[in-house]
């Protein structure tokens, strides 16, 4: 009977355009309280990166936008939207100017991850995985992208040991329905077939919040998240 699940999923995926692209959950992530003050990153030990930044580079522990918007929040369907198949398209994690881009990268289990070194210096990529296998690989400049993938869903902190200020996140999910909020705090999860869903918002210092949403047809449901931030 397991073979039928992918069949059903394919059927739904094929039919959903006919259903006018399905429902959408969208909204904004905002914050209350005082966010921790971000600090200037001192890149002086790596002049080839330091000179790429005209203005001081700040840490990205909490990135906010106008009207208390909160960026870098991963909003995803944590129940009701699991998909066993990763997309064929790889996701890319780029090291440039001794910073990770994007700071938070969401992907599906089994999806190919390409790590690119666009700098003149070597980096090492060290995902501090606890559920998946932890690894640590060096990437000299000008070498081809490192390719890997994750088997289990997990929120994984990534660091570079050579440039200790470089920290980022891999959010590995079982679903393909996810959205990372930008500086305006908004997120959108389109193409949702009718059903009961739990959506989760994850923010790096604060962990997760969940809400339940039901989609009946092609409507757009608005769901907002708010995180209470502390200065420390």
């Amino acid at each position: 009977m397991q073979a039928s699940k992918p069949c059903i999923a394919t059927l739904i995926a094929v039919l959903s355009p006919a259903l006018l692209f399905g429902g959408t959950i969208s909204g904004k992530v905002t914050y209350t309280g005082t966010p921790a003050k971000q600090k200037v990153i001192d890149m002086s030990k790596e002049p080839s990166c330091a000179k790429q930044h005209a203005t001081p580079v700040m840490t990205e522990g909490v990135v906010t936008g106008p009207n208390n918007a909160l960026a870098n929040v991963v909003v995803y369907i944590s129940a009701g939207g699991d998909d066993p198949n990763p997309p064929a398209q790889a996701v890319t994690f780029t090291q440039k100017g001794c910073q990770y881009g994007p700071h938070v990268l969401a992907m599906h289990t089994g999806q190919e991850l390409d790590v690119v070194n666009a700098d003149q210096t070597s980096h090492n990529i060290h995902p501090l995985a606890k559920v998946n296998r932890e690894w640590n690989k060096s990437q000299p400049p000008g070498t081809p992208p490192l390719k890997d993938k994750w088997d289990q869903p997990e929120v994984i902190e990534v660091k570079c040991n050579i440039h200790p200020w470089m920290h980022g996140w891999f959010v590995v999910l079982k679903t393909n329905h996810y959205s990372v909020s930008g500086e305006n705090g908004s997120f959108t999860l389109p193409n949702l077939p009718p059903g009961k869903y739990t959506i989760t918002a994850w923010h790096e210092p604060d962990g997760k919040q969940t809400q339940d949403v039901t989609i009946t047809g092609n409507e757009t449901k608005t769901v907002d998240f708010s995180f209470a931030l502390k200065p420390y």
Partner: protein
Amino acid sequence: MGGKIFAVIVIVIALLSAVPIINHTFMGANVAPPEDISTHGASIDKQLDETMLEAGLSFLAAQLVLGFFVWQFGGRKDGAIKNFPGGAKYLVIAAVLLVGLEAIALGAIGTKAWATVYFQAPGADAMPIQVQAGQFAFYFRYPGPDGKFGQLHPEKIDEGNANYFGLDPENDVAARDDVTSGELVVPVNKEIHLLMHAKDVGHSFYVRELRIQQDFVPGLDLALHFTATKVGKYEIVCTQLCGLGHYNMKAYLSVMTQDDFDKWLKTQDQ
């Protein structure tokens, strides 16, 4: 024939080897210690020069004698076997006296240079700065206006948020005004008391121009003190193998005038 060739080659090699020592250049690169900008370095440099002179002369003498003897006696077919006048006795005496006295002299003189770095305590008004070495960067901490360093909590280290030392400003008042920097900035002509802390494995602190070097040992509270005498930017490099990033583990030492230093300290984030 072989003997004569050997003699020529060894003498040529010996003389050629001495050239870069004298003119400080090899393959177009400058191969001498850089200018000394420390208050204690002069005695180290003097020690180095004296040793170079004595060692250099011994080196040249030995290679030249080797070459000369092989030229004279290599491949010799005729004539009687002769012995070096005096046999081994005078050579033993010469070795014991010359080397022994030289070694004792250099050892004794060197003690003073060593003592100024390691036996003399820093002065009472030396400026304390903490340096933490961790794979693969140096971070520096100034105690701030309260003059006190906050406590270190290894479990609170959060490099992504620039908390390199694991400070707890929420609960630890002394930590709130600590200034963390990726560069060691010091005022010129001011004695610095550098407190050394290792976060993970062994590292070492080396500034060529300051003529100092000291290992960081995890678990030990070590310290260095120095006074920089010239404004400028110098490199601090790690000299204890610490992992893959060892080659890239460095920080800059910025020696500034007192005014510039005060201005810099005021502009730092806390």
